[in-house]
């Protein structure tokens, strides 16, 4: 859960964080007194780097889920701001409302003009309420669909950024057809005649994530998670105890590396050491590079070929055994 606190340190980040604080103190001391502590500082920095490497190369799935939810983690607009040279946000589904949990707009990215659509979380209580904690209503999906169709009309590739704890489970959302809105997007994205690249940047929870996530390439940040339900939701149903979420995260295999093994994700985007929140610029750079690389390949394909390959891609997904 997001908080308003300025510094948020996850449990497993603490050892490194403590060292970093110590280094900061020593630097301040040097500045104040002129005493040379550079040897000690260097030694501590090496130790911090080593520790960081050790911790972050051995993260459990649940720890990655926590990183994906880190309140300092870059959100869709943080990436959009860094990877685009031009961005004009477009609003509304032209049917009922504007949904602030999904942002969408026209963008320049590298040498391409594209549309970008992403789920958007808030950073503090006020903005989280405004963004509905990144949980879209049907209008968000219908706005996305409108922008997909706009992209198709003007032959622009589509980039989607996934970061949602789920589609909003509210009364109005049901009345206005949450399920239909998501289903319609899956259907239309499958046959959209332009390249679609999806990047899971944070949380990918269920149909609410997939509702903007059908594409030619599925990329995933190293510390993002993506599954059929949140670990808490799974734990509440199968273990009858939401506190068993860490076990559920392990059992459902929700990490980027897992999704490569399961042949769902095409590429894992490496994050800066310690997670994307430690260096949003570097994280955005990596995202941009990955998008451009895949876009270059996809731009060569005809609309027919794109749609055919997309269908084949999804037809392969899943695992089963067949007798006889």
């Amino acid at each position: 859960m997001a908080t308003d606190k300025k510094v948020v340190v996850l449990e497993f980040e603490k050892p490194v964080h403590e060292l970093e604080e110590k280094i900061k103190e020593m630097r301040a001391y040097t500045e104040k007194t002129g005493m040379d502590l550079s040897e000690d500082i260097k030694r501590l920095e090496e130790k911090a780097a080593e520790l960081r490497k050790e911790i972050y190369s051995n993260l459990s799935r649940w720890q990655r889920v926590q990183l994906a939810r880190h309140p300092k983690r870059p959100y869709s607009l943080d990436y959009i701001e860094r990877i685009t040279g031009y961005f004009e946000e477009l609003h509304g589904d032209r049917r009922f409302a504007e949904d602030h949990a999904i942002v969408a707009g026209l963008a320049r990215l590298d040498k391409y003009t594209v549309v970008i659509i992403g789920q958007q979380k808030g950073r503090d209580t006020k903005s989280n309420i405004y963004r509905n904690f990144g949980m879209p209503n049907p209008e968000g999906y219908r706005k996305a669909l409108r922008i997909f169709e706009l992209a198709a009309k003007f032959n622009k590739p589509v980039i989607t950024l996934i970061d949602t704890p789920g589609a909003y489970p509210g009364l109005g959302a049901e009345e206005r057809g949450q399920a239909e809105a998501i289903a319609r997007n899956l259907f239309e994205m499958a046959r959209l005649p332009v390249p679609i690249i999806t990047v899971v940047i944070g949380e990918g929870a269920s149909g609410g994530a997939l509702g903007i996530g059908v594409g030619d390439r599925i990329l995933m940040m190293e510390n993002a998670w993506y599954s059929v339900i949140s670990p808490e939701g799974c734990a509440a149903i199968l273990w009858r105890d939401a506190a068993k979420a860490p076990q559920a995260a392990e059992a459902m295999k929700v990490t980027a590396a897992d999704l490569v093994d399961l042949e769902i994700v095409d590429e894992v985007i490496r994050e800066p050491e310690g997670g994307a929140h430690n260096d949003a610029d570097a994280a955005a750079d990596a995202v941009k590079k990955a998008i451009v690389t895949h876009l270059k390949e996809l731009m060569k394909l005809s609309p027919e070929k794109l749609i055919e390959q997309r269908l084949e891609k999804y037809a392969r997904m899943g695992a089963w055994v067949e007798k006889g």
Partner: protein
Amino acid sequence: MDWFKRKKKISTSAPKKDVPDGLWVKCDGCGTIIYKKELEKKYYVCSQCDHHFRVGSDVYIDLLFDEGTFKEFNADIASDDPLDFTDVKSYRDKYQATVKKTGLKEAVITGTGKMNKIPVVAALMDFRFMGGSMGSVVGEKIGRAIDMAWKKKQPLIILSASGGARMHEGVLSLMQLAKTSAKLARLAERNIPYISLLTNPTTGGTTASYAMLGDVHIAEPGALIGFAGPRVIKQTIGQDLPPGFQRSEFVRDHGFLDLIVHRHELKQRISDILAFFKHKNPAK
């Protein structure tokens, strides 16, 4: 129509139990004690209050298709437990136990059949098999049924009875939503009719994919239909849900169902609609 007259407050709680064993059954709708043989003859609809009991795919095959015309295909696709999943017990054990208990091989049966002589391709989900949950096998079998309809240029019927995607297969279950929807998009390009038949319950990922993508949406009376489960919504909004919330009548009144059709009329009404689509208008 009778179902308009039902006086009972429609409950929004979890779906009712399947028809229990024994000679006599108590109706969930009106409390009447019914002789089970009698109920069976009525395809498990209460003759007092028209309550539709939840039934398995075998009853629907009997009800919907001309006698002896239903031919199952892809019967022998089974789950591979791709995640080696274990909660309080292993998915593998639960799966085997479900196969043994229900006599079903998975949560969907696919095949071809005739409805009042009209050849169709059909997929019928079955709630008895792990709550009709959609994992890789359900997605694959339904996907192949869609392919079959595409190839044969025959109408497609998908009967949904499902609590949603199967958690035991994680993201692979989720991707079945995309797989089936993508195949339906291809089917639509050929202008082949697809009728989505929603029964109690149709929720979660099933609703958020093929169940909501039909040319015509038909539901049985009183079925629970929605995306999020009533319990989750209740928790989120912190208040009781209005009577009839997420039931067929509610979903129709909000614009997401074309028709609510009594179980006894399903075959006739569906085949009439298919005949309508099939009809070619005279050139002059």
